[in-house]
């Protein structure tokens, strides 16, 4: 493997200072320029700026910013509902990830099976993917209506089954799970697609060999499918966790952080600090925290992917 790489590198080692190569480099820079400008202005500069702003106290209007050092970070915990928000964000991320992975793995296993007397697979695949096509904004409205205490479909069904209705959006502790369920609904489809791609890549020979050795279907699942699917599971777990930390629209629309701070997430707090209370300094400090959290999760993801490539 290394020899091949070395050979490729040798092949690539063309003389770099011929007029031809210089010409190519200049043209290349010109081709890259629009991308570099766009990314520098709209991603890198704001990224730098958010770090910068997090050291200042600023309301966004006044012309002077007051340098306060790290105090924006150290006073984050004084924000109303800070601890509940942090805990809530973690519960939300973990809850969404666990349920999404469990459901989508099960669904992918079912979808992968083919044969007579089974429901049309391509139809089911489209159905399970469908929620991913909808905007979070739209999904938020839909679930908000479904969770409605008096008129929502969920309570109507509960009542018709003889159960007592639940006040989904105004009960402390329940609303958090209502939000998690709605988020799982939108995330499952993506994971199903990735799991299906992973399942189709498992070599059939392994199952054939196991069958010859007399393994039953549970053994095949535990000893072949799940270990072979480990990379897909890791990827799905990390991407779902990142998506959960980034999620803003859905909880904002369904419950708007209520009741109390029960469904207040980090992202919503950033938005509120920036554009409701105009506390740009602390808003930026919280943004930095979010960026760091997501970067760390992504680094873990990268680590796992590297490991897989080496194997």
């Amino acid at each position: 493997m290394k020899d091949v790489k070395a050979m490729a590198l040798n092949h690539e080692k063309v003389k770099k200072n011929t007029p031809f190569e210089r010409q190519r480099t200049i043209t290349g820079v010109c081709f890259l320029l629009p991308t570099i400008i766009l990314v520098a202005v709209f991603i890198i500069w704001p990224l730098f700026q958010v770090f910068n702003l997090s050291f200042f106290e600023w309301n966004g209007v006044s012309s002077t910013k007051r340098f306060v050092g790290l105090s924006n970070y150290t006073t984050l915990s004084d924000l109303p509902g800070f601890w509940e928000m942090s805990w809530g964000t973690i519960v939300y991320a973990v809850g969404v990830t666990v349920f999404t992975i469990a459901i989508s793995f099960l669904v992918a296993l079912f979808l992968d099976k083919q044969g007579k007397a089974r429901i049309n697979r391509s139809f089911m695949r489209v159905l399970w993917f469908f929620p991913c096509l909808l905007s979070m904004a739209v999904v938020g409205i839909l679930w908000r209506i479904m969770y409605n205490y008096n008129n929502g479909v969920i309570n109507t069904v509960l009542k018709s089954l003889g159960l007592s209705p639940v006040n989904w959006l105004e009960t402390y502790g329940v609303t958090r799970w209502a939000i998690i369920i709605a988020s799982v609904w939108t995330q499952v489809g993506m994971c199903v697609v990735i799991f299906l791609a992973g399942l189709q890549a498992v070599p059939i020979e392994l199952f054939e060999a196991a069958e010859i050795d007399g393994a039953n279907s549970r053994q095949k699942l535990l000893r072949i499918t799940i270990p072979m699917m480990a990379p897909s599971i890791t990827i799905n777990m990390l991407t779902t966790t990142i998506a959960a930390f980034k999620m803003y629209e859905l909880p904002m629309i369904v419950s708007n952080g209520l009741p109390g701070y029960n469904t207040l997430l980090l992202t919503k707090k950033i938005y509120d600090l920036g554009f409701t209370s105009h506390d740009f300094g602390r808003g930026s400090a919280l943004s930095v925290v979010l960026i760091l959290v997501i970067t760390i999760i992504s680094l873990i993801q990268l680590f796992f992917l590297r490991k897989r490539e080496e194997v």
Partner: protein
Amino acid sequence: MISRKRMARTIAGELLFLLLTLFVLIPVYYFIIGAFKGRLDIVKFPLSINLSMIKDVGFSNFSYVFKRMKMFQALLNTGAITIFSLVIVVICGSLAGFVISRVNRKFFSAVYTTLVALMVVPFIGCLIPLVIQSTQLKTYNSLIGCILIQSAWNLPFAVFLFTGFMRALPKELEESAYIDGCTMIGTYFKIFLPLLAPVTATCCIRGGVGIWNDYLVSNSLLNSVQTPTLMVGINMFFGARKTEYGYAFAGIILASLPIVILFLFLQKYFIKGIVAGAVKG
């Protein structure tokens, strides 16, 4: 005997699967039939539909939403943002991918590494400086500002896709073009551009769905009354206040229909986009 037993197990499995499927099916079914029903029918019989319910309402929910919500303007704004951003993303992304995959310089691979690293950054983390920036650049509430931001934030993934695709193309293609006296620009247009159709489709669909469905960017960078986009407009209309369910469902269907139709025709590229996104570093 054995086959009968196996059959029974298959059917039991399918039933279980069907039960699980109700989780996605019920909400979807609920809002699709709800769009054709009146207010009372939605509340009293949420999951049933018959001809007399449809007869009373027909498409009146849709026409109401279309008239009252400034749907047409929202559709134009969202359409313009999506199309122009995608044009910018495809042009810049393919050019960048071409250079990065074909010209062997350290600077270019450094740019590539930076772009791939930037895929991680969450948009909402940069929201505060971006809004400040948009007032400084006087692009607040202009579609152009929104288009530029959407293109910039979609570019890293596009460059990643294009670079990966072009690296896999044989080197001989390019070399023979040079021998025949083609310039680099000529090579790009005549040799590479025609080959890029599949990756362009993947890129457009992946980016297009995100931009079409976007709420956060247009909500924070556009004035939602003067320049509504679809998702922002729908939320202003149905978000906070007590809503007429039938209208909300009709709005949801109208706003999502373009993407759903696109999906039904181009499923393959949707799947490709997701799988490529998952394997990214």
